[in-house]
């Protein structure tokens, strides 16, 4: 796992981690990183304040007064000291030959005040001169679920990571990690990189595109420092694996005098959008869209076309699911006569329909064999490129709660279909009046590899995005 020889490889795969300057009573950073010790790594504390030492030792950790006293080479350090101390800590980390460090410490250029700007420039100069891997400052640092390095005590420790995520914002990095995990998708490596004074998004991106643990890459960016380098790196990354770019805020226009018509029309957002298409990146506007499209990329079979078979439980929902997918620019084609003939053999058309969209609750009647029969027939139709099926918490939650085996049977039927079909298949399960219950059964779908979306619109939008991406890649 990792990218042997890459300058970031050591800090992205740490065995020895130091937390510098963490304070009680919470000891947030030490707690975050305790899993490291259960995963074969060593965690050390560096803290000069005598009063903090008992609390640190109570966690079963060794404390040192200086970075230079830590008995092993440090692969990654999380620095949470006051800003005035940060340059001294960085000096020691450089002297100790550490693999890299995330500076949680804030109060730098983001404050706009003179001292902060000066301290940041000092850190940057020291790190650059020593070729030191400085993450941040003003960031949450790295989240490495395999190693047990975390930026939140809620973030899972797991070997199941597939998504490399980069975030200019600590909150968005953590929130994406948690929401993705709730949807059964885990982080391989995540960097919250804050002010990015030394390592910028392109450096991390270059690592993640080479990292064999990372299947897809996501990022939250507000702006980039070296636009040309970002362009060439992103273009290369997109050739290797899917990259989802969630852009926040307005791109800075920059000072520019223009004498041409073209110059007056080149709005920063328009240039950014053009670059995204040129690189072949998938773009999103918010957290939900990012999670949804990741789900399509990771949990649905490769998308091939826009012909959708839509399977709803009732008449009203068959109209709504069609509206949602049609508005997203997808097609709802007629089935072939052969499909109609097969469905017509058993479909209950009183209070139901086997046109596309299907209105099928009255026919299925909770019988999984019948559901399986419908799925097989529809899937085989040559006009169908992909399928979207509604599950109804409104109708089914009471029964699923009373007889959990009925829910399990439903999920098993859908998972069986997904396993044997080469066509993408997505499920829409609106929380309806049972939000808490529906959230509680989400892991069952995750574990079975069934991609579930909470609304027709979100499923349709994610489908459309992923399809456009597949088409761009196909050229």
């Amino acid at each position, binding site marked *: 796992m990792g990218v042997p020889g890459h300058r970031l490889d050591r800090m992205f795969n740490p065995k020895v981690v130091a937390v510098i300057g963490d304070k009680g009573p919470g000891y947030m950073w030490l707690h975050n990183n305790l899993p490291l010790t259960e995963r074969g790594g060593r965690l050390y504390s560096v803290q000069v304040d005598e009063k903090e030492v008992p609390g640190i030792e109570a966690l079963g950790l060794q404390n040192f007064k200086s970075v230079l006293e830590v008995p092993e080479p440090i692969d990654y350090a999380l620095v949470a000291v006051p800003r005035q101390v940060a340059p001294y800590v960085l000096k020691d980390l450089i002297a100790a030959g550490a693999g890299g460090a995330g500076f949680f410490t804030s109060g730098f250029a983001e404050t706009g005040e003179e001292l902060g700007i000066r301290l940041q420039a000092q850190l940057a100069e020291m790190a650059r001169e020593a070729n030191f891997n400085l993450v941040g400052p003003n960031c949450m640092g790295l989240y490495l679920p395999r190693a047990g390095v975390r930026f939140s005590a809620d973030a899972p420790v797991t070997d199941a990571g597939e998504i490399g995520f980069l975030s200019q914002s600590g909150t968005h990095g953590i929130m994406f990690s948690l929401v993705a995990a709730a949807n059964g998708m885990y982080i391989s490596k995540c960097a919250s990189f804050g002010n990015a004074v030394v390592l910028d998004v392109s450096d991390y991106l270059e690592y993640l595109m080479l990292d064999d643990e990372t299947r897809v890459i996501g990022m939250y960016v507000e702006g980039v420092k070296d636009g040309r380098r970002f362009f060439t790196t992103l273009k290369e990354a997109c050739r290797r694996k899917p990259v989802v770019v969630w852009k926040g805020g307005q*791109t800075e226009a920059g000072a*520019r005098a223009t004498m*041409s018509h*073209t110059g007056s*029309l*080149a709005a*920063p957002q*328009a240039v950014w959008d*053009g670059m995204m298409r*040129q690189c072949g990146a998938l773009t999103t506007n918010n957290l939900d869209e990012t999670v949804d499209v990741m789900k399509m990329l990771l949990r649905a079979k490769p998308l091939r076309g826009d012909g959708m078979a839509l399977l709803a439980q009732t008449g009203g929902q068959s109209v709504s699911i069609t509206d949602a997918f049609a508005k997203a620019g997808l097609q709802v084609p007629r089935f072939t006569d052969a499909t109609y003939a097969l469905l017509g053999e058993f479909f209950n058309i009183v209070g139901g329909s086997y046109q596309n969209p299907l209105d099928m609750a009255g026919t299925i009647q909770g019988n999984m064999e019948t559901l399986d029969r419908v799925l097989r027939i529809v899937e085989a139709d040559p006009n169908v490129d992909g399928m979207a099926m509604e599950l109804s918490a409104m109708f089914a939650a009471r029964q699923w709660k009373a007889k959990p085996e009925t829910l399990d049977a439903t999920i098993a039927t859908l998972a069986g279909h997904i396993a044997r079909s080469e066509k993408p298949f997505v499920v829409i399960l609106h929380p309806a009046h049972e939000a808490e219950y529906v959230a509680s059964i989400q892991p069952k779908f995750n574990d079975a590899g069934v991609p579930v979306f909470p609304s027709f619109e979100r499923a349709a939008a994610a489908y459309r995005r992923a399809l456009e991406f597949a088409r761009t890649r196909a050229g």
Partner: protein
Amino acid sequence: MSFEAVLAQARAEGRTLLTEVEAKSLLQEAGVPVAATLLARTREEAQAAAEQVGFPVVLKIVSPDIVHKSDVGGVKLNLQDREAVGAAFDEVVANAERAVPGARITGVAVQHMAPQGTEVIVGMTTDPQFGPVLMFGLGGIMVEVLKDVSFRLVPLEEKDAQQMIDEIKGRPVLSGVRGQPPADIEALKRTILKVSEFVQAHPEVKELDLNPVFAYPDGALAVDARMVIAEA
């Protein structure tokens, strides 16, 4: 004239905006299809140039002090013969001198008047973050009002040129509407890619407008060109 020579001359004169004749000659050399345009300093030169580029012709005033040529009566269209060219030369020079007293008048650009085609714009600007950027759009109202344009970073690949043509909202116009023949998309792509090569080879170019470019059923032709170079 070579790029370096044009650059040197403009800088010697303290200009960052090249003349239309300069811009077009550089583009033509780079393989971008442009309407033949010659500089004439006298009435007689204008008449000779007109015969060289072929009637009908357009005359446009060339002056570093005049940016908006038509506003000062500095443009005469559809001139069919020598006499018309001679009279037009006198008129545009007089108009320019009257409108901008003391303006330095380099001469008059004599350009073959290309038949009307579907108007598109191909442009380039230097983005403060991303460097040289190309733009494509339909000309006229589509670009002025609707800002229906697409962008790509230099250097472009063929698929980029194709996509930037395909993604504008007015794309159906290029396929031919109301009985119009479809525009030559391949020629537009070649034009875009040639411009990309040109600006990549010459980082001194900061801004460029080919506006309009006439798209024909067979070929494309830039009829006007503005080029801005970096200060020395």
